[in-house]
């Protein structure tokens, strides 16, 4: 046994401590808040609406080989509300993260997925409400907008 191992053990115990206290020692979230009634994407974050009522954004100049990522804002109504937001994409090479504190979605493209049209869906598990944003490349081979 050596000092490095003990340091690693201390790190492990610390992580365990935080998890243990979270699971067994923290108060539950308040259930008094109302659920979400609408999820919307502000006008500044999309270019036009599709026939299906989905939002569409052209990203040729935003998502490039040098910066294969983008982010967009969204809002929920009412605020504050009880929610459990998740985000999904329609392409394996595109991942997304949702920040429900700052109301932002971060989208990451694999280099192999650059140029592919992809739909990002934000969904609230508590209320079942959802919204979709299509990220469109003008030079894309595909014509059909992929959906869920």
């Amino acid at each position: 046994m050596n000092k490095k191992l003990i340091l690693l053990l201390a790190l492990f115990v610390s992580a365990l401590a935080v998890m243990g206290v979270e699971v067994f020692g923290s108060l539950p979230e308040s259930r008094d808040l109302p659920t979400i009634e609408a999820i919307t994407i502000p006008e500044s974050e999309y270019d036009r609406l599709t026939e299906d009522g989905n939002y569409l954004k052209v990203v040729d100049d935003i998502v490039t080989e040098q910066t294969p990522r983008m982010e967009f804002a969204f809002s929920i109504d009412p605020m504050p509300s009880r929610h459990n937001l998740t985000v999904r994409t329609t392409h394996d090479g595109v991942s997304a993260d949702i920040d429900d504190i700052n109301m932002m979605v971060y989208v990451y493209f694999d280099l192999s997925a650059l140029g592919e049209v992809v739909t990002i869906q934000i969904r609230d598990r508590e209320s079942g409400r959802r919204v979709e944003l299509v990220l469109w490349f003008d030079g894309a081979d595909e014509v059909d907008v992929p959906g869920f």
Partner: protein
Amino acid sequence: MVERIKVLMILQLSNKMALKIDNKQRLAANIALRLLVIALISIAMVVVLNVLNNILGIIVNAYFVVFILMVTQLFAIISATVGLMTDLYENRENTLLHSYPVKNDEVFLSKMLVYYLHEIVKNSFLIVPLLIGFGWTNQLSVYYYLNIVPMIFIIPAIAVLVAALLSVPLAMFRHFLSDKNILTLIVALLVIGLMFWLVMRVVGNIPTPIRITQLYSQFTRSINRFMQNAASYGLVYTAIGLLLYGIGIVRNYAIVLGSLIILLAAVVFVSRPLYFKLASRSMEHTVEKVHKSKKGTSKNLFVTFLVKEWRIARRSINQLLNDYTILIALPFFMYMLNYIFTNMRLNSTGNQLVLVFNIIIALLLVTASNTASASSITTEGTEFVIMKTAPSETRTMAWAKIAFNLLFSTGIILISFLLFQIALPSFSTTHRWLIFLLVITLNAGHILWSFQIDLLNPKLSDYAATGSLSGNPNIAKSIAGGFALSLVFGAVAAVVFLTIENSVAWAVLFILAVPFVLLRLYLFNSYLKAYFIDIEF
């Protein structure tokens, strides 16, 4: 020249590994075993990368590879720099190698090549499985795997060349500090203070109240963004990541090979000419001793030995800091953990768990720091037998050593808790100082225990021959004992804090801790009286 370098390399390698091959079957089995280990690590990497990608939400793509390469190679460069500072300039074999009919450049080159081989072997067990695992996870083409082959040689070469360059100014800086103990102490304190301030700034950015589930998603999001942004600053490692992924292969190979040539040229024109000058510097005469004759004798033997310990510590601040490095981590751990705990919405069980985990972590770190006690007699080396010939009660030196270690470690623990108090005043003051009292009580018992381990089996001749404590079994035993002590008291704390009132729980812990210290004191005293006289070189 090539033949001389080959001989020099064999001489150095034979010190590190068994080179004589008696049995070809055994050699083949050895190679097969190593390949099997690499294959097993690769499978483990596939599992880990899949868990990261599919369960933990960390995106495993080309930028992930660049980021992991950057991080692992940063550690590889730090480790190689420290290793080369010793291997190139301070290794005891230098005296022997330079006495051979060879040129200084040949010694330098042979040392660099030996280190490079060592890095290739090391990398084959980490970077290669990682790259294979990454390729499998992302179902990359056969060209990806073909590109891994040159990387087996290129990645360690970059690390060793950068380390060779960095080791020159660092060796000079170390040499500069070698006779300036006060300056070393000031530099160390400034670095620790700066690190603590940085930790406070980083931890202070966590949004409160802390909700771990949200914090986790924010954490993964930050990691993903950070990895993508970091790839822009990855220099040669970005080029390696992209070429592995099949992007701009010619351009990125040109960048990698160009970087290698520039590094090689820098080593040839900067490190090589300075090598002999630095390697032949002796530290022996760096301390200018001003001897002032002083009349007077101490009547108290204990005080004499205690003053001696203080003088040794003052003259070797580096060693002292090295002995207590892990204890310096204590305020960092306590601050970070308790910042999170105090900003969580805790129920009564949560408050009790906070106390239990604080006790376990503080004990783990404190008891792992008593290595100085577990090597107190060993580090006397050849001087121990001379000291024993003195016509007095020389076993008093053991008590002086214990008193010094006890005072020093208690001082650092006190500073840690004071820092903790200043940085996080919202934590209960009563509990904070009760944890402090419990920790220093058990630490006293563990110091006695550690010293007893060394007393019963000191490695005087080993230390005298090598000057190193590496692989010392007494230190390992002391750390293992401390670990066991932390677990036992952690378990007792968990039971008592979760079942009975706090005041009674504290009483139970102290009722167990105080007899433990008294028992260790009694045992140590008995063993000291019985065995000190028998210690031989």
